[in-house]
């Protein structure tokens, strides 16, 4: 039997069992529209790339990390000083998380601005918003794992925020902490969330999101739905995949460079009895929320300032989540108010983030 025949034989054996030809046929026939906003299509796959990097580096780190009160900080220290190239792996993991969340924000904002969430893509948007929440939760739970002074204090502040919610607030805080205070139980709980519960959620949501994207196809820019025949289309395989590969390679290069030159440091082990250090700050993607909460006064009339802030943030989030149902105009309508709101959010995000850094 020749080499070619053997290859074809193996391919047909797997094809009979998995039905791979259906998938390859789908990929060959899938078309990507080409227009002035095509660049935004690459942000989705960039998120997948960074997520994959996080899974791989996470597996590497988990071999050496020990999620106990006594060992957490020491094990991270060992990863950084004793494990060969451990500090680079940790740095790549940490930076990939930041890059992923940045791209999730960019991806959602691009969809917001191009109104791609409109019918029939409402559920695609909603699954995307859930993915943003899970990504932020992964970032938040991962921040505590090194168990140093800064991460402990930031987690104390972060898990204390839900306490301002009336009635359920104290329960949410206890659920997150595994008790009244941040302790070793919180660390174990956060580790469980970070490596097991949240990844399961993210895999399910990703599957739903990708399925919906494949089923409904790529959205077209505003008003272009009606003149579909004029839009140039590109085959997904291989034309679009080659283009995506170029973007992936560049992003990989940037990630490696940043991870090597700007690795995250490790503070001394957290002391539960020590006072909170100065300059407690969460990760950059929480800074705008952190600053928003900070600028609210303690009391506004007879309402607790924090409660009001949480309520307003929750309402903004609900608006964000139900955006496709609120702005359910036909695809060709511009929706200037919604566009303006997107720009207001961008300005608010940047101003609050910079303000909290000053």
């Amino acid at each position, binding site marked *: 039997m020749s080499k070619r025949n053997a290859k074809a034989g193996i391919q047909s054996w797997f094809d009979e069992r998995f039905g791979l030809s259906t998938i390859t046929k789908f990929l060959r026939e899938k078309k990507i529209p080409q227009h002035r906003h095509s660049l935004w299509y690459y942000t989705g796959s960039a998120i997948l790339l960074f997520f994959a990097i996080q899974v791989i580096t996470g597996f590497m780190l988990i071999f050496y990390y020990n999620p106990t*009160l*006594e060992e957490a*900080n*020491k094990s991270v*220290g060992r990863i*950084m*000083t004793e494990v060969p190239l451990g*500090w*680079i792996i*940790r*740095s790549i993991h940490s930076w990939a998380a930041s890059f992923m969340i940045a791209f999730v924000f960019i991806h959602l904002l691009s969809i917001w601005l191009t109104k791609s969430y409109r019918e029939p893509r409402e559920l695609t948007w909603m699954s995307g918003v859930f993915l943003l929440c899970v990504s932020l939760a992964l970032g938040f739970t991962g921040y505590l794992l090194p168990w140093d002074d800064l991460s402990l204090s930031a987690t104390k502040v972060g898990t204390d925020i839900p306490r301002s*919610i*009336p*009635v*359920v607030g104290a*329960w949410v805080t*206890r*659920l997150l902490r*595994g*008790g*009244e*205070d941040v*302790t*070793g*139980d919180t660390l174990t709980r956060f580790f469980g969330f970070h490596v097991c519960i949240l990844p399961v959620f993210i895999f399910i949501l990703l599957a739903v999101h990708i399925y919906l994207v494949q089923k409904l196809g790529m959205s077209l820019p505003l008003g272009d739905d009606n003149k579909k025949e004029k839009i140039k289309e*590109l*085959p997904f395989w*291989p*034309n679009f995949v*080659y*283009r995506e*590969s*170029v973007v992936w*390679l*560049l992003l*990989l*290069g940037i990630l*490696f*460079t940043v991870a*090597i030159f700007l*690795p*995250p*440091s*490790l*503070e*001394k*082990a*957290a*002391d*539960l*009895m020590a006072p909170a250090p100065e300059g407690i700050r969460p990760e950059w993607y929480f800074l705008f929320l952190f600053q928003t909460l900070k600028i609210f006064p303690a009391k506004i009339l007879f309402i607790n300032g924090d409660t009001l802030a949480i*309520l307003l943030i*929750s309402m903004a989030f*609900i608006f964000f989540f*139900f955006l496709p*149902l*609120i702005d*359910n105009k036909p695809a060709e309508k511009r929706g200037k108010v919604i566009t303006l709101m997107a720009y207001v959010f961008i300005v608010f995000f940047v101003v609050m983030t910079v303000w909290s850094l000053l």
Partner: protein
Amino acid sequence: MMLRGKRNSALFLMVFFLLSFFVLKVDFAQQVVQEEQNKVPQAEENAEKIVPSPANIKESTGIYIFLAWIWIAIFVLIYILRLKIKEVDRLNNLRFLSVEKK
């Protein structure tokens, strides 16, 4: 009609969410034994801040060479991919034109 239904559903969910702030009183949170919470970690052993960097000159040289190789490999791959993109686009355009002619 459909739009009104969706709007009503969104309104209902929003009201439901806001109400949940005030009506839920069940406590499912795990009660943790107090003694365990009062444990103080032994933080003294690892009291120094660790700033990650290559362990020695050999490792740092190795890392920078590795990084340089990564970028060289990336540029070579991008160059090859650009050629491939041109080729597959040309093929696609030819097929596109032949379909148009029909």
